[in-house]
Each structure stands twice: as C-alpha cells, then as structure tokens.
C-alpha cells in the first residue's frame, strides 16, 4: 500500500449504532474512523444523525466485535429453523373460534 498520508490510516475503525426515537432498539448505522471514543461519537453524530434520526449513539471499536461465520450459517442457525412448534401457526384452534 503506497499511502502518502499515514495519519489517516492510524485512526481505528468504530462501528456506529443509533437508536431512533420511540423506544426502538439500537441499530447498526455504519462506521467511522476516529482516534478515540469521544471523537468517534462526535463523528458518528455528524455523519449519521443530521436529521434527528437518533436519541442515542453507541460506538464500538470494530476489532472488538465477534461475528458468526457466514460459511457456517446453515448448521449454526439450524437449531432455530427446524422447530415449527415454536410458532403459534403450528397449532390448530377449534372451528368457530375466530378471536383467540
């Protein structure tokens, strides 16, 4: 990599999570580069909340996130996919019962 400016690449990457108003959970918005958490928060506010999209922001160093491996997605999520009896639609209600 032939970078002329090394100062930019030294800033770590932070993942940004924003919480919209109305009690919804935090959601991944994107990422920012910043030298520390304080500036990461400021950058995240400027980049991802210019229109009142958020009431709260989390920033997390990207390197600290552990993620499931996409290659194993099939077997990994399988235990949750083969149990239809966990859904209400699995069960029959007697004819005539409209509201349950």
């Amino acid at each position, binding site marked *: 990599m032939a970078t002329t400016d090394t100062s*930019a*690449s*030294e800033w770590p990457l932070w993942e940004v999570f924003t919480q919209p108003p109305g009690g919804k959970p935090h959601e991944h918005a*994107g990422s920012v580069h910043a*030298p520390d958490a304080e500036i990461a928060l400021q950058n995240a506010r400027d980049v991802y909340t210019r229109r009142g999209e958020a009431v709260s922001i989390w920033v997390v160093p990207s390197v600290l996130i552990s*993620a499931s491996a996409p*290659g194993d997605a099939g077997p990994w999520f399988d235990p949750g996919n083969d149990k239809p009896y966990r859904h209400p639609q699995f069960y029959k209600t007697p004819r005539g019962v409209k509201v349950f």
Partner: protein
Amino acid sequence: MTTDPKTPAPEDPAKMAEFDTRLARDETIEPKDWMPEKYRKQLTRMMSQHAHSEVVGMLPEGNWITRAPSLRRKMVLLAKVQDEGGHGLYIYCGAETLGIDRAELIDQYLYGTAKYSSIFNYPTLAWADIGVIGWLVDGAAIVNQTMLARASYGPYARAMIRICKEENFHKRQGYELCATLARGTPAQRAMVQDAVNRWWWPSLMMFGPHDGDSPNSGDLLKWKVKLKSNDDLRQRFVNLTVPQAKAIEITLPDPDLRYDEASGNWLIGPIDWAEFKQVISGNGPCNHERLAARRAAHEEGRWVREAAAAYAAKRSEPAGQAA
C-alpha cells in the same frame, strides 16, 4: 483497475455456483461472505468512484455558499453540501468492508488513478447553476441510486437507501430555485435557461456510455450490482425531466428531442461522447482545479488529524493501553 495485467486465478467452481445461486435468489452478499475476486474488484472500483464523486461534488456548490442571495438559500446550500460529504462517508464505509483501507482509497483519489463522476469537472458560473445542479444532477443521481438501493452487495445497498432518503431534498430545493428564477425578471429567466443549456448534456452523460460501449456494465448487471442498463436509466431520467422543464417553461437544448408515441419515451438527439471522453480522461474545464482543491484540503487538515491522534495517545497513557 479494470484491466489486470496478471490473469486472476480461476475461481472455485463450487463456490462460484453457490454464489450465482444466491444472486438468483436475490440474497444480499455480505462483507464476510465468499465472493469472486472480480466482483470484489468491480465493486471496489464502483463504490470508491461513487464516494469520491460525492466528496468532489461539494466543490462546485461550495463555490456559491458565500454568495447565496438570501439566508434561506445559504442555509439550504450549507446543509446540502454537508450532506454530500456525509454521503461520501457512507459509501467509503461500505467500500472498506471489501477489504480496502480508507487511507488507500483517499490516496488513489488524490494522488492516483481513481476516477470520479465527470459532471463535477464543469464550472458553476452563475447562481442559477446551483438550482440546475440540484434539479438535473441530483435528479440524475437519484434515478441511478434508487436502482443501486437494491444492489446485491448489502453495505452498498444500505448506504444507497440512506442516501436516497436525503437526496430528494437536494432535488426539490434545486427545482424550487429554478422555478423561482424562471418566474422572475427577464435576466433571472435568461440565467436559469443558460444554466440548463450548459448542464443538460453533461447530466445525460452521468449515466455513462451507451450499453454497447460500456466496459463494466456486463459484469455489474450479471452480478445484480446494477439492475438496469445505462441507457434505460438515462431514458427514465429524460422522461421524468421533460415535463418538469415544461412546467417552468424552460427549454432543453436538444433540437431532436421528441415524444415517441409507440414507446411512450422522450427520445433525445446524439450525445457528444468525444466531450465525455475528454472530461473523464482529465481534460474537462475544472479537473485540475478540483483535484488541487481536494489535495489542499487534505494537506491542510493534516495537523488536525495528527493533533487528534496525539491527544488520544496521550490520554490513553495513564491507563497503560491504547483503545
């Protein structure tokens, strides 16, 4: 970046088949998923060009912030230019998930061979240009980006959804500005007509070469990065824009422009591709000025980046470890 001198290693046929099946099922491809090297390369090229375009797009409009004719227009223009910077950052963040470093992207842009949209190499000569950029240039970008919001690469599509939500304001404010000038004094009317005359053809060129002459379109369509061809998108933009021009009694500078009953399309005359080639190969009216301005901004901001890094390092010292 499109012509790799080394022949790339052939892809694993089993993985390739699974990738094609996923695309056929309209699944999104995510950063850690397996993808063919050419897909990664084409996306890196396309997303970085797109990000650079957003950032360089701040310059023609920034040129008029100090001279906006009212406080309202100045606030609007400031907000729009800030959005363009934000849009660049959304796409850089998406491009980085392909495994390229931000500093490397910036370096290719400022000192290397990376391209950006040819449209930003034209000058903003009058205040009406600001309106016409919002109406035509952002209008064209919306047509393109609405399609890209369904692109197969998840981070790109998500950045586009965010951008599309914000971009409509850009077009609206521009069209409002044009409509206001078009209803104004004869001089104001002439100013907006002149700006439309200058920006119309470059806006049509934003969609890229005709389908038969577009070197990257085949792969991008096959991989569902693009869902429509350059000519289809250009036609959609023309069909949307012609009635808007009529509504404010502005003419489009194309003597061949005519409505085709059979297809329901507004057909345009020939595009000057020689001009397009000149501008993308670095000989447009403002290529040197734009790059010089971006380089200067980057260099002049160096001390801020260094100071922030030094401050962060100093603060992490007592704890004995860096974040």
